[in-house]
């Protein structure tokens, strides 16, 4: 039996940290397999939010009073935690945002004043809409050209084609570290290295990798990296943009307002330095602090343990689901992806499967997963996506598989 990682992790104890895992859905114990959309929140993080409002709530960076100082310190401590986690050189290279979408838009908006007509930007064929649309808008504004790095049927980027696409007109490259629809882990080291060789900058969308892989910004030499806290046990509405200091200094501010200025007259405003230049207005203070707490929690559990346990879950689920006739899995083999199982059953619509699974207490995602180009590629209306987290269990996969069989019998 695959008990090694399970023992290593003490899943039973971990599950006790997550109050929501003990509730029922439609009269059945919840089996939550929609972790790639949003992860669940441990008590530690929930308590941190409560504690903030009960003991520290005040506006930050502007008050001389003690409470404001406390809130500011807690917020900046969280920034330092995020910096340490992603191994950025400096804390001010971490910009708190409302999440990945916001982070990407911030960069795209900034590049509107940098790019020129005829410049080329590359985006992978397996991006989330939030890593496609902002760049399309940027191209419309600047006259730059958006080109797509193709993928294979297995859901892997065609690196040879990528190499050929790069040239001295290439200014930016955008790829997700991990695909949300397929779970593929992309070879970002090579992608970054090759792009830098022609002088292009690289933004890696880390929304899906952050829950499974600890990315090292300096080792990767990545230019921009984005994360949403709600996918790594943190609260919704907060995330980060990592950017290299010189690039963040070069980009103009995204929004104007309080916090982001150093001096304002009606004639001229001078902007504040990093990170405040990009953090106009009162931020999600409790969210930022809880983001830090979520990283603490995940690091306590340990990313290596998480990765090995989740890959056991994925392997088991892949083996079991493959026994069901008519199942087609989209995306690479379990070795090259995170714990995401994207599939269809021949003759059945993902929506029907998802609806019946929900009736049996199993939460999965169905549809195009905000990655319509991928569905277009496979010529399917969507998939059923079960995505696992370190607090899921083999028993839950058994429940999922038997619910799936029942749904199939009902529908066929």
């Amino acid at each position, binding site marked *: 039996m695959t008990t090694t990682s399970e023992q290593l992790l003490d899943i039973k104890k971990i599950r006790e940290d997550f109050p929501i895992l003990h509730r029922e859905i*439609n009269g059945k114990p919840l089996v939550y397999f929609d972790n790639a959309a949003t992860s669940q929140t441990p008590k530690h993080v929930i308590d941190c939010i409560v504690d903030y409002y009960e003991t520290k709530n005040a506006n930050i960076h502007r008050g001389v009073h003690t409470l404001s100082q406390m809130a500011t310190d807690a917020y900046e401590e969280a920034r330092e935690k995020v910096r340490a986690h992603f191994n950025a050189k400096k804390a001010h290279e971490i910009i708190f945002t409302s999440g990945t979408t916001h982070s990407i838009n911030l960069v795209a908006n900034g590049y509107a004043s940098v790019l020129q007509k005829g410049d080329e930007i590359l985006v992978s064929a397996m991006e989330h809409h939030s890593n496609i649309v902002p760049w399309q808008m940027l191209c419309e504004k600047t006259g730059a050209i958006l080109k797509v790095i193709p993928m294979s049927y297995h859901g892997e980027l065609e690196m040879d084609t990528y190499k050929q696409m790069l040239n001295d007109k290439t200014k930016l490259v955008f790829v997700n570290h991990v695909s949300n629809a397929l779970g593929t882990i992309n070879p970002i080291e090579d992608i970054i290295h090759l792009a830098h060789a022609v002088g292009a900058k690289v933004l890696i969308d880390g929304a899906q990798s952050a829950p499974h892989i600890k990315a090292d910004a300096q080792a990767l030499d990545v230019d921009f990296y984005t994360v949403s806290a709600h996918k790594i046990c943190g609260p919704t509405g907060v995330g980060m943009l990592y950017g290299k200091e010189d690039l963040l200094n070069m980009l103009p501010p995204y929004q104007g307002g309080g916090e982001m200025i150093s001096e304002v007259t009606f004639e001229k405003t001078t902007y504040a330095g990093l990170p405040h230049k990009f953090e106009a207005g009162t931020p999600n203070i409790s969210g930022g602090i809880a983001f830090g707490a979520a990283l603490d929690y995940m690091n306590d559990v340990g990313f290596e343990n998480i990765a090995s346990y989740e890959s056991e879950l994925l392997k088991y689920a892949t083996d079991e689901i493959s026994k069901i006739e008519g199942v087609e899995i989209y995306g690479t083999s379990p070795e090259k992806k995170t714990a995401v199982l994207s599939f269809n059953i021949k003759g*059945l*619509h*993902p*929506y*029907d499967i998802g*609806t*019946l699974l929900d*009736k049996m207490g199993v939460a999965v995602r*169905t*549809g195009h997963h905000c990655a319509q180009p991928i569905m277009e590629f496979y010529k399917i*209306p*969507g998939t059923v996506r079960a995505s696992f987290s370190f607090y899921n269990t083999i028993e839950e996969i058994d429940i999922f598989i038997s619910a799936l069989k029942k749904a199939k019998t*009902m*529908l066929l």
Partner: protein
Amino acid sequence: MSSKLKIQIKVNSIEERQEEIIEEFSMFEDWMQRYEYMIELGKSLPLIDEKFKTDDNIIKGCQSKVWVNAEFKNDNIKFTADSDAIITKGIVAILIRVFSDQKPEDIINAKTDFIDEIGLKEHLSPTRANGLVSMIKQMKMYAIAYNSQQNNKA
């Protein structure tokens, strides 16, 4: 013959059809039986003419495609429909049973509480991806269109 036909139409008013459906659903003991029945209804929905599966007839629900076509015949609207998802098809089959071969005016004024009563309330949420609300809206829109056409002629 014509008087008989009238009686039949009366027996089959929208409300009565709804009552009938409520009664059928009341016999089910759990969600499984309800869904099995809807799947059954979906499977037995008469095939729509392929030429009606146009983009104009598509109802925008984000996860499954639904086509609803309306024809005006003998003062009544005849609806036909299809969907690529079977549960959605079951839902639209229920709507067709209630609204098809009815007068535009009756369709416009019809209440839709019965959906609640047959335990499909969860499908009524506007954020739900199957677009039940949009289906009803679309059918009523057809009715409004035919109704104004009729009034203009008169």
